[in-house]
């Protein structure tokens, strides 16, 4: 599951999963790896590929601003 989450996240960030593993606490928004459009696309992919539905209206950026937090957020809701 964790591998798959990283794979989807890395694709949206335009990097390789191995790159993200180098720094799992990197701020995805501040470092320009995610923006509003990519973030929403990410949620669509999580729904379609992992079956984890996250309602964007209930999500704060601060809940998914690092790779570690994305994994935490998904395991909480998955």
């Amino acid at each position, binding site marked *: 599951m964790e591998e798959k989450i990283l794979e989807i996240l890395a694709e949206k960030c335009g*990097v390789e999963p191995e790159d993200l593993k180098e720094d799992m606490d990197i701020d995805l928004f501040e470092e320009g790896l995610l923006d509003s459009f990519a973030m929403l696309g990410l949620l669509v992919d999580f729904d379609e590929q992992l079956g984890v539905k996250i309602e964007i209206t209930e999500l704060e950026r601060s809940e998914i601003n690092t790779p570690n937090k994305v994994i935490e957020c998904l395991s909480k809701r998955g």
Partner: protein
Amino acid sequence: MFVLEKIAEYAKDANRKAVIHGDKVMTYAQLEHYSNAFADYLLKNGSNKTPVVIYGHKEEQFLPCMYGALKAGRAYVPVDITFPADRLEMVLSDVAPEFFVKLRETDVAVKEGTQSLSIDKIDDIFASYKGGAVANENWVKPEDNCYILFTSGSTGRPKGVPINRANIENLYNQLISWCDIEAETDIITNQISFSFDVSVVSVYMGVSLGKTLYTIDKSMMETPAALYEGLGSSNLSFWVSTPSFAELCAMSEHFNEKMLPNLKRFLFCGETLTHKLVDTLHERFPNADVVNTYGPTEATVLVTASLITREMAEDPKPIPIGEPLPEVEFRIVDDKGNLLKSGETGELQIISDNVGHGYYGRPDLTEKVFFETESRGQKKRGYRTGDAAYEQNRLYYFCGRMDFQIKLNGYRIELEDIENNMVKVENVSRAVVIPVMKEEKVDYLAAFVLLTKAIDGPKLREITRIKSELAKLVPAYMVPRKIVLCDSLPTNTNGKVDRKVLAAQL
């Protein structure tokens, strides 16, 4: 029937709302008073008619400053905060304005002869004004520019597109019937940044019809909860945006008729409208029309409009960019300029009074794409769009660009603009930017980068460093999402970088 006359007319009703922004409301009476205040300040303190550069993003002072400039006979140059200081500086250097309105702080260098007006100063001007309307003879004349928008230029320097009052009035006359639906109570979106011309539909058509502009700003866009809460309480009836913004909203299934029960029409402009979005909107808003339009900034926002029917949505052909507005003539020509027959694909030329007079201070560029011709017995201006298109049953279909210009999330970008700026970043010796398509449009940009010297640290840090350095030179939307560090670039038989090979790697 110019917009300024209409503002004065609606201002007589003390309660009529011009703009809603969060909890704040600006009435037409305030809009009228503030724009008079700013115009009066410009007339009393100015010595020439140079355009006023306004830097900011949807602040409540923005619109009164725009209309105030027009009332003082000046054009305005709206620059959104997505422009980094470096680009803002290029705009200031091209325009050499007498007045520079800074609604947001920026440490950009201002030349001698330019007076900076802070947001506090603007508020002061608004609050202390005791006078009435600024006399009409001071207003912009039909041949005077109303705005200059700076758009991506292939050399890496943005180019200014000036549009005059006659262009806008022509657009107004052509488009009015598409906007005039229940004018009295209409609430229209005010989401597109003022530096992009799709905003003209709200700023000129919407306000001329006395509609209320409902502001959706960047901070709302970044907080989905606030965006949907805002939409839910907006009571919007007329939606104007790029398809991308509607796609973003549609990612929540709650974006439907229940959220916006009064919505009558979606009017899209600025990029490809996909079948997917049309189907979603037809399904979720069965009582709203979907209208597609098309037009380059050089021809004043849009030159087509067509209702997208369910038949068009079911047709596997692309969604049409529409039928030319009554005054507009389209020509599809081959590379020698010969007119092509119906159904044949060639370059689309626009002949219309919507076509502007060229690029600001760039006769060399103007000469290449603007021309004069005769249409239906009248002398008209024409513009070579660089868009490939064909016509069938009076509807036109877009088939892509003939150069390296693309649209991403509604933003017009010259890929060479990005490449030419990327090589200014330290340790980047070469950059090739490729658009990555998904369904019918560009999903994101990828850059293949050759480094001057190999890195020893983590790759991710080098990628984010390149991105953040590039973001100081170009707007954030031009920073490629994907950056691939590579040792060499494939070349074709002519020795040029083979973009097809690179695209296939993505």
